[in-house]
């Protein structure tokens, strides 16, 4: 076990832990945001640079600060390391610059996008984004590609985090989509228009931090903040069957995996709770689900609007 200090909070972690995961052990405000890193998917991270932190002291042996900001998702901690995230002005400025870069080609179509309300780029833009873009050139656009009748790909919104590629590599047996071309021209696509059809391909929607991959069966049906997220389960031979159903009245509008506060799917029975396409796209009938109860949602999320029950855990009985 080694000791690190993140934003003046000391924590003991196992050797080889990344700074980001050490910060997540502390939780709360000190956790840097991450757009591309996904703890349930190995080989993700290091691409988006939003999780930059300042290392004020490298280790006890060599307490010199690291000259540049480092990506916390793929930098392992060292004994005696002092990390600054919220307390560093440099980190704030640089993260703002990274967000500006991410938004260079991202269209401003949140009113149309189905991801709005649960979009990580929207949260980042709200926190760090400038009011106006300084970019004068045309935004990069792509011709729409059809990747099947269940998943909608909006390439214009993609920030190239490669999470969906990792899902396809690690959850499915045959990957048919990937990133074509390079640099400015890079795009997620299927080579020679083939449909993405696999039992677990729908998890691409859950891992996408922006609205590039969205559910076609939910497309433009409603906005997420009008729906009521309920924890539900069913008997499923392919997956754990533990999901969140998004209800409007007695109708199920969409089904997603159970995501934690970092937007990552929660562990179910010791395994990541990926859900299969049958559960996600085809079971839109209330009789097929066993509804457990309302899903706890962060009070500051727009999804919690109109849902009047307060955070139950924070209420303490007066004796």
């Amino acid at each position, binding site marked *: 076990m080694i000791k690190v200090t993140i934003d003046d909070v000391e924590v003991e972690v196992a050797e080889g832990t990344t700074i980001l995961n050490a910060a997540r052990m502390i939780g709360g405000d000190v956790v840097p945001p991450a757009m591309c890193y996904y703890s349930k998917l190995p080989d993700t991270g290091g691409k988006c640079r939003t999780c930059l932190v300042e290392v004020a002291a490298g280790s006890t042996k060599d307490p010199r600060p690291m000259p540049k900001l480092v990506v916390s998702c793929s930098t392992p901690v060292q004994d005696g390391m002092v990390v600054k995230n919220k307390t560093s002005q440099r980190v704030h400025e640089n993260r703002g610059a990274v967000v500006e870069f991410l938004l260079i080609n991202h269209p401003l*179509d949140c*009113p*149309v996008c189905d991801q709005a309300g649960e979009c990580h780029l929207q949260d980042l833009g709200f926190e760090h984004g400038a009011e106006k873009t300084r970019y004068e050139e045309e935004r990069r656009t792509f011709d729409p590609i059809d990747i099947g009748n269940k998943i909608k790909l909006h390439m214009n919104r993609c920030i190239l985090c490669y999470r969906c590629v990792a899902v396809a590599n690690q959850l499915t047996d045959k990957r048919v989509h990937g990133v074509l071309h390079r640099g400015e021209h890079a795009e997620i696509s299927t080579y020679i228009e083939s449909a993405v059809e696999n039992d677990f391909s729908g998890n691409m929607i859950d891992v996408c931090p922006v609205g590039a991959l969205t559910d076609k069966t939910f*497309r*433009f*049906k409603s*906005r997420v*903040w*009008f729906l009521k997220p309920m924890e539900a389960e069913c008997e499923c031979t392919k997956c754990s069957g533990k999901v969140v159903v998004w209800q409007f009245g007695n109708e199920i509008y969409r089904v997603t995996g159970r995501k934690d506060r970092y937007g990552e799917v929660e562990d179910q029975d010791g395994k990541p709770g990926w859900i299969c396409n049958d559960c996600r796209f085809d079971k839109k009938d209330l009789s097929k689900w066993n509804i457990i109860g309302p899903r706890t949602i962060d009070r500051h999320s727009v999804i919690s*609007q109109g849902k009047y029950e307060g955070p139950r855990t924070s209420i303490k009985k007066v004796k």
Partner: protein
Amino acid sequence: MQSLSNRKKVVSDKPMTFVEKLYLPAIAGGMWITFKHLFRKNNTLKYPEEQRVFAPVYRGMHVLKRDEEGRENCTACGLCAVACPAEAITMEAAERVKGEEGLYREEKYAATYDINMLRCIFCGLCEEACPKEAIFLTDRIVPSEFERDEFLYGKDQLVEPMNARIDVTKRQHTGQRGKK
């Protein structure tokens, strides 16, 4: 305790004098006030022949604007419905199909858009929330009706007609408030 506002009046219930018990001076005083009002300027107007000039910030009946080419601005993003404290707004979105590009500005549009004018409190928060400059509160008055369901205004009453465009330029700078 010392009064902070200096408006405190101490109630007394001392018995009335003989003159007060007659009530005649009080009645005459009341009549005098009524008489004075005969020569005052009228505060009311003879609506609808006469109409008051509205302030530019007056918030009356809503309009769903079209752009210069006549395409509907609203994309059914739902922000007005979230902002609405009276929950007066409901809508359903639909996807624009090929051939409708002249009708709707974006790929999503409001297939139905209803405002319940009985619920609406004309606070203008929908207008402030709208990211597409689609909904505005105008200086028109919501007419009175006999049936309650006639106050459920749909798109046919809310979207501005192409041959009778509604000028909202006076209100279009409201988003600039707070900016220097």
